[in-house]
């Protein structure tokens, strides 16, 4: 085909790839996998240690998980719902290869599509909106006197802080963004996040939320 058409076709294919959710190569980082499977990264590491999931390829910052991990996590979830103990689940998983797991989990058209949580999170993630943490927030203790919610403080301090933590993260956010999200960590603690964030910052925020929740749930 003539050169300009070929360029246009290449550009189109590249654009389609970027728009696909999740990552077109079907590989995931730990936090992406956690979001899609609706578990915490800690749980995934626990399963790997316990032999329910195989170790991922590579290690460190470039660790990548694949679809097989996602299918297995779904199968683990389903077997847990049937009240199987983890030891039993491990025994079953060890005996299955990825294709078999996929067939088991993807048996119905519904499972093959993935759950509602996975779909919604993939949409929110692709828009730079972090999903809610897999753990439920602390329950509201008693009612509060009525008080209008304050507007978050000017963004400058927040940006500087993120930049200081991140070092070489993405370029500073464009000045006309004004979408703030409030996450309730406890009845008296809120985290204000200005969206959209880069993928890296999204992951940092998720870690921050997990750590905050752990701290708040500790009994002194």
């Amino acid at each position, binding site marked *: 085909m003539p050169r300009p058409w070929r360029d246009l076709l290449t550009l189109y294919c590249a654009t389609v790839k970027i728009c696909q959710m999740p990552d077109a190569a079907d590989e995931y980082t730990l936090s992406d996998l956690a979001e899609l499977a*609706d578990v915490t990264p800690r749980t995934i590491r626990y399963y790997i240690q316990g032999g329910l999931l195989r170790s991922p390829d590579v290690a460190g910052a470039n660790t990548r998980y694949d679809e097989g991990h996602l299918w297995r996590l779904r199968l683990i979830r389903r077997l847990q719902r049937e009240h199987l103990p983890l030891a039993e689940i491990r025994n079953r998983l060890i005996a299955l290869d990825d294709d078999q797991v996929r067939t088991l989990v993807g048996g119905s058209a*519904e499972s093959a*599509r*993935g*759950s*509602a*949580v996975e*779909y*919604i*999170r993939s*949409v*929110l993630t692709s*828009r730079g*909106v972090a*999903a*809610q943490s897999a753990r*439920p*927030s602390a*329950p*509201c203790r*008693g*009612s*509060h006197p*009525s*008080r*209008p*919610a304050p507007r978050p403080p000017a963004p400058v301090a927040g940006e500087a802080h993120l930049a200081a933590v991140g070092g070489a993260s993405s370029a500073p956010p464009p000045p006309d963004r*004004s*979408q*703030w*999200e*409030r*996450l*309730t960590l406890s009845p008296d603690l809120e985290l204000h996040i200005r969206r959209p964030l880069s993928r890296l910052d999204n992951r940092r925020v998720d870690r921050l939320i997990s750590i905050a929740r752990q701290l708040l749930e500790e009994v002194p």
Partner: protein
Amino acid sequence: MTLTARPDRLFIRRHARSQRFVLAQITAPAADRRRERSAVNLAFVLDRSGSMGGEKIRLARRALEEGIRRLDSKDRFAVVAYDDAIDVVVESTSASPEAKRNALAQVARIEARGSTNLADGWLRGCEQVARHQRPDEVDRCLLLTDGLANVGITDRAELEKHAAEIAMRGITTSTFGVGLDFDEGMLEGIASSGRGNFRYVEHAVQIPDYITSEVGETLEVVARDTTLCIETEPGVLVDPIGPYRSHTSGTRTVVELGDLVSEQHLDIVLRLAFPYGQVGITTRVRISVTDRDGVLDPTPVEIAWEYADHHRNDAQPRDRDVDRAVALQFAAKARQEAVELNKAGQYRTASDRLASVGRRIRGYAGSDPELIRLAEELDEQGVAYAAPVAPGMLKQHHFASANVRRSRDASGGVRRER
């Protein structure tokens, strides 16, 4: 449950692709009062953008309070409030008395503020439902807005796609548009793709009733994710006339009807196009209903058409009830299109659209008074639509047509008898 299917005419021509219409009518079974109803898992997504200030937000809060009060401890609910920030005001919780008290206190704090990130607010609400999905429950997100989505995803097609994908995964979306400024095409589109219901809340004072009516419907769902299945012989084309999504695979067409409420009545119109055939041969079509849990009787009803010569075709009687149902569907669709056209300033096209459907109907009306009256109404409306129509009137017409297309009454409620 009852399922009936009636053709407009029973003979088809051998030398022409005959087009025939079928009216399928479903009446859902009554809820079995002796058995416990299914649990519901709801998310209320509330617009708290600046324009909702004053009476609207106050009534919306009241609507939420009344809706939450109707639930009991086997149900779950969540509340999300959005402007350009998204707040999960109440994380999905089971509706125990304590949780309800806490929730009401949180809801009382919602105030109107910023601009409108409808998409992320709605998705966050769906996520709240999704995180606690259980089998055998009714999962639904209720989205209330008074304005245009101006932050986040604003493309209607994209929102409809997400609504359809989320509905496929078990969570339906119903939408409520308050006042004059929201985009009724978008909101109805989201509800339609989301297999839920759309309501136009003309006056803020109606908000509580409409919300509690919707909650009430979820508490009376008897069949989830129902579909009408049409199986034909090869070569027959099936085209559902109506707002429902459908897919065809080979000789099987499936029309998605959403959740059915106790004793709800639905009229579904189908257009069939038949291939050439030989005189005396019959061709059969089987129509049945299914639902996610196998509650509805799947026994099909069958219609057999016979190929006949021109004389018999010309002389055959018409089922006027079917004709009327068909005409109502085409009229309602044309009216909704005319609303969009008039809004866009295309007055001539809007007017012509209505007039041409009026002419078509007059073509087969004969002496039937209802069809004649419908054609006259369309003519009159065509004249009115040749000039700008007030936004409130456009929204009223749009909503009225949406209700006709879905066999609902004037306030968007379920019809329970013919």
